[in-house]
């Protein structure tokens, strides 16, 4: 039977390409869902020394085809070698980068093996029921997304768009096996004669790797005007990119084009200047962390995908912006604050803050993030820290490793507990989860996989739950002779009602994300690849409002919920009143509304 997820690793001139690491990251999560292994296939001349690195990035096995014929990419020798590997190993899934090499090679191989091939995918996941690979890809110039499967033919093959998947953290402790695979290749396999390799204009920067991009479109008017973008890029340590209109006009190199037929980028900052925001352009930049657009037309579609839009003339604003940045830098203000601040002293959770959003990641992926006492303690200490941290507005809680949010409590730790110890553990967990619920920040759970037992209870302790379509929910305690004891019986019944909570707890049946959405256990379900983006967008949307009001509303709902209706109204009345006090935002918000301007909330 066919098995394992194969990644065809791309190297150019002996250098592994970033897309190879991205594919290994994605393959790892697919392989986990299938309970299979990740096999990296590495082809080239004198290339074996790179095998270790592929293991560090997620490969369980590396198959090396080392042959002088494979020195520079040519279709036939590569197709022959890979076909031999796929056939010998009976692969279940084979992934290629959707680069100009991958898209030349993969269709040739698919026609040789006579199996299906899905092009230029931006999302992959395993259907939980059929175990088939579901491949999501854009078509019709990015206007349509299609989900494609290959039911009866093996392997299931796809090319995957570079820049879309996430590589794993490099782990030099990871181990795996390396196999040298012999393929009889000779000069005769070269069906074309390579006369010359001509490097493209030497110093073209790789815009997919840039942290910040300053991007220009037709609105720049002429090639010379790219100068002001280059000058701005210099002070921001950014690269310059462009829309296709600017590239087609010959103002800038094609290597810098963003979009459907250009590069897909996901920088920290994408500053779009004089770009209208056509769907083919947006397809390449919508995953940027922060999008700011400058456009003179109020109706430009780019504003629809921007975190901040400014209606105005780029020729005036861009030079001024550069001056402001230089000034800010020379004023000695410490603007170079690290974007990621690690909270030390934690082992089982990761904690960092970025742009006012804190991320709490339950980090025991090998135990499916099961909650033990130490993990609960660390969640508690993060909550304590946040209680007084005004700089953080939203907390996102998530699980590490792609498979589970939190798959339950640590059973081994609970096996030998006396009744007194059991009572104490439940009280402790209840206290930690109640602390989380009572935080002044808005707490969003991003649920990527299993949320079982204590995991479902942790998710319910958050204010809002966003789930990946592959998430699963359940309260399996009665299988173990227990009942939910980390707030589960109380919260679940209040959240989904009497009948559904009892059905979940009594039958221990696992719910799909769709079913969880239907009964109100989660609030949004998104494709797996959109989980963090949707969650972050939701956080940013909340943060663009009056945070004082948002927090008061949270308090009113939280405190009112366990009360009688009439008493709840008193809480509401109290919180509402605070909006009108000096410290409230009501005055500014309503004045701005009347004056038809953007409110400046404190």
């Amino acid at each position, binding site marked *: 039977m066919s098995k394992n997820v194969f990644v065809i690793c791309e190297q150019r001139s002996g250098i592994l390409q970033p897309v190879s690491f991205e594919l290994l990251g994605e393959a790892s999560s697919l392989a986990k869902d299938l309970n299979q292994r990740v096999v990296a296939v590495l082809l080239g001349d004198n290339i074996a020394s790179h095998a270790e690195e592929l293991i560090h990035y997620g490969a369980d096995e590396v198959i090396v085809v080392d042959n002088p014929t494979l020195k520079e990419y040519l279709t036939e020798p590569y197709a022959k070698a890979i076909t031999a590997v796929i056939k010998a190993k009976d692969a279940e899934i084979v992934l290629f980068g959707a680069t100009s090499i991958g898209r030349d090679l993969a269709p*040739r191989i698919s*026609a040789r093996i006579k199996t299906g*091939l899905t092009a230029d995918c931006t999302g992959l996941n395993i259907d939980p029921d059929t175990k088939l690979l579901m491949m999501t890809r854009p078509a019709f110039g990015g206007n349509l997304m299609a989900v494609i499967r290959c039911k009866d033919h093996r392997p299931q093959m796809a090319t995957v768009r570079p820049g879309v998947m996430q590589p794993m953290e490099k782990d030099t402790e990871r181990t795996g096996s390396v196999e040298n695979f012999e393929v009889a290749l000779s000069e005769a396999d070269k069906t074309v004669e390579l006369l010359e390799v001509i490097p493209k204009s030497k110093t073209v920067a790789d815009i997919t790797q840039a942290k910040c991009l300053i991007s220009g479109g037709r609105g720049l008017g002429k090639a010379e005007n790219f100068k002001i973008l280059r000058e701005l890029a210099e002070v921001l340590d950014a690269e310059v990119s462009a829309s296709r209109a600017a590239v087609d006009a010959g103002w800038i190199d094609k290597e810098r084009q963003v979009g459907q037929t250009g590069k897909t980028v996901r920088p920290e900052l994408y500053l779009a200047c004089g770009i209208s925001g056509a769907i083919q352009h947006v397809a390449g930049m919508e995953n940027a962390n922060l999008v700011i657009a400058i456009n003179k037309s109020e109706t430009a579609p780019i504003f629809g995908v921007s975190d901040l839009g400014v209606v105005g003339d780029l020729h005036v604003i861009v030079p001024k*912006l550069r001056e402001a940045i230089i000034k800010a830098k020379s004023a000695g203000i410490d603007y170079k604050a690290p974007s990621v601040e690690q909270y030390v002293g934690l082992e089982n959770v990761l904690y960092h803050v970025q742009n006012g959003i804190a991320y709490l990641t339950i980090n025991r992926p090998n135990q499916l993030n099961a909650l033990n006492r130490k993990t609960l303690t660390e969640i508690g200490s993060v909550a304590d820290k946040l209680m007084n941290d005004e700089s953080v507005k939203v907390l996102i809680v998530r699980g590490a490793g792609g498979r589970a949010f939190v798959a339950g409590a640590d059973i081994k730790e609970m096996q030998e507990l006396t009744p007194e110890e059991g009572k104490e553990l439940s009280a402790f967990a209840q206290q930690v989860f109640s602390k989380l619920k009572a935080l002044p920040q808005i707490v969003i759970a991003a649920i990527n996989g299993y949320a079982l037992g204590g995991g479902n209870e942790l998710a319910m302790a958050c204010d809002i739950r966003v789930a990946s379509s592959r998430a699963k929910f359940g309260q399996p305690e009665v299988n173990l002779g227990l009942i939910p004891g980390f707030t589960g019986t109380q919260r679940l019944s209040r959240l989904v009602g009497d009948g559904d909570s009892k059905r979940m707890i009594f039958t221990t049946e696992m719910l799909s994300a769709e079913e969880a959405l239907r009964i109100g256990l989660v609030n949004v379900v998104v494709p797996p690849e959109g989980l963090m983006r949707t969650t972050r967008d939701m956080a940013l949307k909340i943060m663009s409002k009056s945070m004082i009001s948002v927090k008061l509303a949270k308090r009113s709902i939280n405190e009112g919920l366990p009360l009688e209706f009439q008493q709840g109204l008193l809480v509401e009345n109290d919180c509402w009143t605070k909006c009108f006090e000096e410290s409230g935002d009501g005055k500014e918000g309503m004045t701005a509304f009347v004056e038809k301007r953007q409110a400046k909330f404190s």
Partner: protein
Amino acid sequence: MKIIVCIKQVPDTNEVTIDPDTNTLVRTGIPVIINPDDKSGIEAALTLRGKIPGSTVTVVSMGPPQAEMALREALSMGCDDAVLISGRQFGGSDTLATSTIIAAALKKIGFDLIFTGRQAIDGDTAQVGPQIAEHLGIPQVSYVEEITPETDSLVVLRQFEDRYHRLRVKLPCLLTAIKDLAEPRFMTVEGIVDADEKQIRIMDYEALSDVLDPKTIGLKGSPTNVVRSFTKEPKSQGAVLKGLTADEAVDAIMARLHESHLV
């Protein structure tokens, strides 16, 4: 030299819009065109014909009877003859099945050099060209930007992201054309008149049945299928500030950059 150009009739995706109520593609009333890369292929083929005496250019398209329009346009640009591969048994083919059918037809038609476009703007897979080459057992060179003919072979410039290859490839072979290969000429009045007089050869399932395994074509013969499709959810919108002075605009941007620790 017998030159073939495979052309696909496609909706002009520039004009495709989304119905905001149903969130689906509006397909009716969208103009259809010859796939842009294929037009570069036609132009390159016509240029080669000019350089190599005794050459002919045949355009081939698989599709519904309406695809005849695309073939007529190609004839009007100056191509010598046209073949329409059409039959309901071919409907619903994925790229593997499509390439199997086109390759079967090409075996019957004969060829020395085949052009396809790199990528069709509707299906957007860029797979059909290399797959045809594999079925025919001939070498392929994709992303071709320049062609110089030699006796029995071509020297071509092939584009990658970071480099070019200059390659010599023996005939018969298949090249996939990109926009940079050639700027297509317009139809001429004479061309249109000539084209009207030309017959378009139709190849249906019967015509190919001796070389086609029915299990490898159409919806049933396609390994991949589209399970569902949807239009993309737009990213949520942030604030749009208007009526600001340039200085206020700069302040607003600086505040945002500062907040994100980018300055």
